[in-house]
């Protein structure tokens, strides 16, 4: 639980400090403050609502994985834990996921330039790497099962299958957004249109899931 508590405290600390320093010390009933407040435009953050929504969603997903990691840490201490030897294939998968993130970053830069053909190529390459990563993860599962390491064999295995599976599910959700972006790109004709913001948000999400994977993979390797 300490991981999660730490996560929540850090998050609360950052948000709290920021709010406090900028917004929460005003005395709204006083005249001087009132003049300042009247010119306030209404939004707290200088980003679009969609991006705000994405960041809040990422905080929720972080809480979700942090709790799993807390559970992992607590369950690991008990006697029946038999550490799992992770298949070396995971290193290759990690590399592929890094490549997909790089490709998405490249697409994002192209979208900022307004370079439509490059965005399309970039999205296809990203999609290819992402599907390759997912296929690699399934292959890793099959390798484990082939060597007699099933989900229910030991709780370490269960955690392995569960964490990789949930990470994969989040990536699948990302792929749904990716498919929608492709669709928007096709509808937009020669311009980028709404696809531009979708590319921006998806890229953030991809980087985030890469980070989650690196943390999870590190934890699995270390134990």
């Amino acid at each position, binding site marked *: 639980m300490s991981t999660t508590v730490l996560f929540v405290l850090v998050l609360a600390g950052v948000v709290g400090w920021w709010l406090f320093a900028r917004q929460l010390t005003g005395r709204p009933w006083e005249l001087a403050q009132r003049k300042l*407040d009247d010119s306030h435009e209404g939004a707290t953050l200088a980003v679009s609502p969609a991006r705000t929504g994405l960041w809040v969603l990422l905080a929720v997903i972080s809480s979700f994985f942090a709790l799993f990691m807390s559970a992992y840490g607590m369950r690991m201490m008990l006697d029946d834990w038999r550490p799992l030897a992770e298949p070396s294939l995971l290193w290759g998968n990690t590399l592929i996921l890094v490549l997909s993130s790089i490709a998405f970053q490249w697409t994002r830069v192209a979208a900022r330039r307004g370079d439509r053909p490059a965005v399309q190529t970039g999205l296809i390459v990203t999609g290819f790497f992402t599907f390759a990563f997912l296929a690699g993860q399934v292959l890793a599962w099959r390798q484990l099962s082939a060597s007699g390491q099933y989900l229910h064999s030991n709780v370490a295995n269960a955690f392995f299958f569960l964490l990789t599976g949930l990470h994969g599910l989040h990536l699948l959700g990302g792929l749904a957004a990716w498919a929608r972006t492709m669709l928007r790109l096709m509808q937009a004709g020669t311009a980028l249109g709404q696809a531009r913001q979708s590319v921006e948000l998806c890229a953030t999400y991809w980087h985030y899931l890469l980070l989650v994977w690196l943390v999870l993979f590190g934890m699995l390797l270390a134990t």
Partner: protein
Amino acid sequence: MAYVAIADRDTHLHDPQTFVTKYIWSQDHKVIAIQYSLIAIGVGLVALVLSGMMRLQLGFPDTFSFITPNNYLQFITMHGMIMVIYLLTALFLGGFGNYLIPLMVGARDMVFPYMNMLSVWVYLLAVLVLLASYFVPGGPTGAGWTLYPPQAILPGTAGASWGIILMLVSLAIFIVAFTMGGLNYVCTVLQARCRGMTLMRMPLSIWGIFMATILGLLAFPALLVSAIMMILDSLIGTSFFMPAIVSMGEQLAYEGGSPILFQHLFWFFGHPEVYIVALPAFGIVSDLLSVHARKNIFGYRMMVWAILAIGGLSFVVWAHHMYVSGMNPYFGFFFATTTLIIAVPTAIKVYNWVLTLWHGDIHLRVPMLFAIGFIFTFIHGGLTGLFLGNVTVDLPLSDTYFVVGHFHMVMGVSPILVVFGAIYHWFPKITGKMYNETLGKWHFWLTFLGTYSIYLPMHYLGILGVPRRYFALGETEFIPDSAHIANESITISALIVAVVQILFIINMVWSTWRGQKADPNPWGATTLEWQTPDTPPKHGNWGPKLPEVYRWAYDFSVPGAARDFIPQNEPLDPKIAPGRDHGVHA
């Protein structure tokens, strides 16, 4: 960049045409709020009936053949889970959150209206999955609302095969629904406020709902994590939570799992959940008191800071629910300390409510009665919470009716009184009609006194040592006859209180169709939702132009002003207050 309100940037604001898009697949936050509320109240009535059945058994044991021990445990489980999650969480955040946030911060709608619509329908799905457990073999789970393993999924517990799975799946679906709604509430508060609406000019209702949503977004994943792992334990035979165990003379395949791990995860969600329910109630009650006492809320800044402090602290007190599970004494010390510390910001809020009433011009209308009733029940439940926060006091009392009395007072009756007060308060705005004042007063007094006569004796039963969760007490030496009489009287009160709620429903239904037309701002309130061009507000809320805010939400009884309130969107009049501050310096 020239300022364009976010709600006005989108040119294609969803514009409903047909009955179906207007009232069923609606993306209007007000319709969604009403859908949420009706579903929540509907399923809440089921939970109310369940509590009546439990009380029948406890008050008159050996009388009702249709209540078996298994039924009784199923009643407890479903009653608890429905009331806490499917009624209170959904009603405060999905209902009041949806209705009040855009109106109070001056937005046309939530920032993601489509997701908002999905949220309510996914919530309905969660409710249907939960209720479906009445129609599967074995019935709903009887594991207690905390669903502790190992017994939750072992044969011998009611609903161990189907019921528990449906419960966990329903919770998972609910969490998805809540996350979709929650993203909306947070982003709308942060990003869609109208010009001039700084964070510190928001009404406390919004602060409470906002903070509760953040707690929900971070804490519900803990429930989701434990639900996923328990489903795997039950269906696939993993041992996340299940220890090596002999069940009904048979050694099961589980090994080495940790039931305590489940308890940590569950309460890491469970304790913030208390504040997910309490913080919106705190916020709303602050506004009710201020409006009906015609006085600015005492210590507005302190109230905001207290909400934030409570929100932060609520994540570091969860293990006080687990003193009886056994823990390192230093942990017990730590959690007892944090638990008592959280009483400080809470007490600040209580003092400020009472001081808001001090020298106020109190109008004892129905919403105000409920708000003052809340102060009583909340102080009462809060004080018994101080008892239970201490390890040594908690250990003997934890499994008794003292705890039942405590938490029903603090997070059952108190939030429900606020719910009623809030419904009466905003009813004229929501429907455009006025409710029947007399029926409302009867409803308040019978409910308020009735709930006291239910839960006050429970503290006495608890100190006697009467255990909770038991189907029947039987002939037990340490339980005197007076306890049985108290139980009968509690049951009679409970049934009366349950029946009295019909008054509320009649009042609401009748007034909606036949009530007198209400004034657009019958209470003389300052906040934006009372300043809409139409009552009830039309789609898009504000007509052609968004409001602009020039003052905080609590300009009541300002010296020199023509009326005893100044709406938030009224510009500063230099004649009234040339450079002078209003109100109390916090």
